[in-house]
């Protein structure tokens, strides 16, 4: 659906069901240069099972208008604005990669609004490889090719997509190339590289938190993800073998299963 936040039109997938304000809200926040489509194998499930879902396209990404936000802090505030804009007082957040930085920062800033936090392929900081950052800022498609290489584990590289007929690396690559690379990936990578508050923000988080990490994740290795999780009181960690950074697609069923248990326990659906 489309709605307005701070005067700009925003697109968010509602997971194939009409947006229903009576149901608890889950917001999914995508990674650098990507779009709402990375969440397709989680969002539809929750939308069909008692939740209102918004898999947002960040400003300037996917089908959302405006310019990309330049800092993780601005993105965190923007997620809060999204909750206000759709008329909710609270929400659960799910983030992937850069989306983890955003949702961690958002949760620390708006502790009363955020009810659960689920992090996928997250870390307390995501310092960028300088060459990769430079390529993205120079609008070089090689940045996307490198990101797709590093972001995928064996499932991505060999294939075996949970949705028959889809090929991971090219699908991800096409998403990241769907707008101007330097205006999406370039700005996002710089924002990740600049963000230094992740560990401090994590210490402030007191809500149920889940981290899903993957053994073959080269972008946010398990070690980094654990470092972040250790700072959050009582946070749960699930580690997936033989899987890369794009676990939400590479091991979509496993991710959904863990996410489902965590969210429905800590933030129950509206049973209709």
């Amino acid at each position, binding site marked *: 659906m489309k709605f307005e936040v701070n005067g700009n039109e925003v697109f968010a997938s509602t997971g*194939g069901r009409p947006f229903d304000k009576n149901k608890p809200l889950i917001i999914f926040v995508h990674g650098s240069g990507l779009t709402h489509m990375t969440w397709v194998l989680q969002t539809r499930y929750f939308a069909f099972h008692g939740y209102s879902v918004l898999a947002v396209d960040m400003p300037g990404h996917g089908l959302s208008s405006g310019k990309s936000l330049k800092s993780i802090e601005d993105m965190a505030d923007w997620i809060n604005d999204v909750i206000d804009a759709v008329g909710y007082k609270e929400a659960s957040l799910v983030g992937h990669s850069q989306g983890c930085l955003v949702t961690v920062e958002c949760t620390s800033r708006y502790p009363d609004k955020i009810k659960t936090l689920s992090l996928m392929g997250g870390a307390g900081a995501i310092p960028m490889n300088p060459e990769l950052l430079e390529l993205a800022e120079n609008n070089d498609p090689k940045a996307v090719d490198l990101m797709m290489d590093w972001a995928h584990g064996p499932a991505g590289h060999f*294939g075996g997509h949970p949705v028959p007929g889809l090929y991971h*690396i090219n699908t991800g690559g096409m998403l990241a190339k769907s707008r101007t690379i330097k205006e999406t990936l370039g700005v996002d990578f710089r924002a990740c590289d600049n963000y230094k508050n992740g560990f401090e923000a994590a210490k402030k988080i007191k809500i149920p938190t889940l981290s899903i990490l993957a053994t073959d994740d080269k972008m946010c290795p398990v070690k980094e993800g654990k470092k972040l999780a250790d700072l959050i009181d009582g946070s749960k960690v699930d580690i997936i073998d033989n899987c890369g950074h794009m676990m939400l697609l590479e091991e979509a*069923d496993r991710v959904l299963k863990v996410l489902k248990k965590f969210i429905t326990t800590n933030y129950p659906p509206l049973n209709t």
Partner: protein
Amino acid sequence: MSDKKIPNPKTYKFDTLSLHAGYQPHKNAGSRQVPIYQTTSYLFDDVDHAAALFNLERGGHIYSRISNPTVGVLEERVASLEGGTAALATSSGMSAIFLTVMTLCEAGDHLVVSSQLYGGTVNLFRLTLPKFGIKCTFVKPRDTEGFKKAIQKNTKGIFGELVGNPGNEIMNMPEIAKIAHDAGIPLMIDATYQTPYLCKPFEHGADIVVHSLTKWMAGHGSSMAGILVEGGNFDWMQNDKFPTMTKPYEGYHGLSFAEEFGPTAFTMKARAEGMRDFGPCLSPQNAWNVLQGIETLSVRMKKHCSNADEMVKYLSNHESVAWVSHPNVPDHPDHELAKKLLPNGRGSMIAFGIKGGKDAGVAFINNVKLASHLANVGDTRTLVIHPASGTHSQMDEATLKFAGLSHDMIRLSVGIEDIDDIKNDFEIGFRAARKPRLVSNQ
């Protein structure tokens, strides 16, 4: 920025993908070969799982008309080789083309189509699609401007074969892609004759690629199969021409394919709607046979092309041959374009004129022993056919000409036998072809 510092992506390359893409042994009992999932249907864990699969909430298999794990490996493998986002395999090349059109078009729509196509495809566009309310305008493949002029308000796409059959005329794919995109419509290319080894149409602006996998991809003349592949770059939401892609679809709880699946929307729709309602599914056994063929695609295509190059030279210098058509012939009108679009080789389809006309053609075909006389192309074996006496024998001179054929034309699909044996076999055919003339001259 110095190029040295920048690492190169280590994603697998063509020859590796043709052996491995789409398959992980450890998820299949360690079976090194792709298993043949000879089954119609798949267990649901519980009712919730069943509903989730039907609602496209989760990926997975329901029923082999819609998808099958063996067929799925083939789909991913071809998508990876083409540089596409997704693919859908079908029971034949024709059903892949039909499904592509039916996913794109509704009654009242129009397509601009190259006039040099495989005969079955011509019939589909000329005679069958109008029965569904879909009309086509045919344009000669080399008439790039003609494609632009033929576009109407209700035109939903441009379709063609990169190298036309049998005249070997080449579409200027990059230019025609630009024309399509300026009009907000996709370019669909039948790349059967090229395979992704010779050309990846997505790199030249195509949006959908279709193949008859029956031919060079499978390669061994054993199995019928087809596939449609999506490039993922076409923006279905840029205009209001594609409501069935962009508007809520009643068949799936108001799903908008373009919104939900973006770069894979076309394939998702072709499967969810087309496979469900038309059902031209590929059998797992045939999918496996095609996978076997694709494992050696590069090796075979190299030999097909080097043998074809040899045959072009041999035929061009032969006293019994009036003319040779192949993009490698230096005076072929598209010789330069072919070098640009087909850098790895120009394919193994040759047409040539035999001196002595129809009778000579008949004698040649009836006397070759190694070359097989049949209605197929892209076998590992050398194939020949004389359209004027066989497939097109009902046609008079004028109709033959319209179809790009002539009485003296022999169509040759060069196999990967030893080149000397192919030439020796042709010598037998040519000798027989010269005989009737010698007799009548006396």
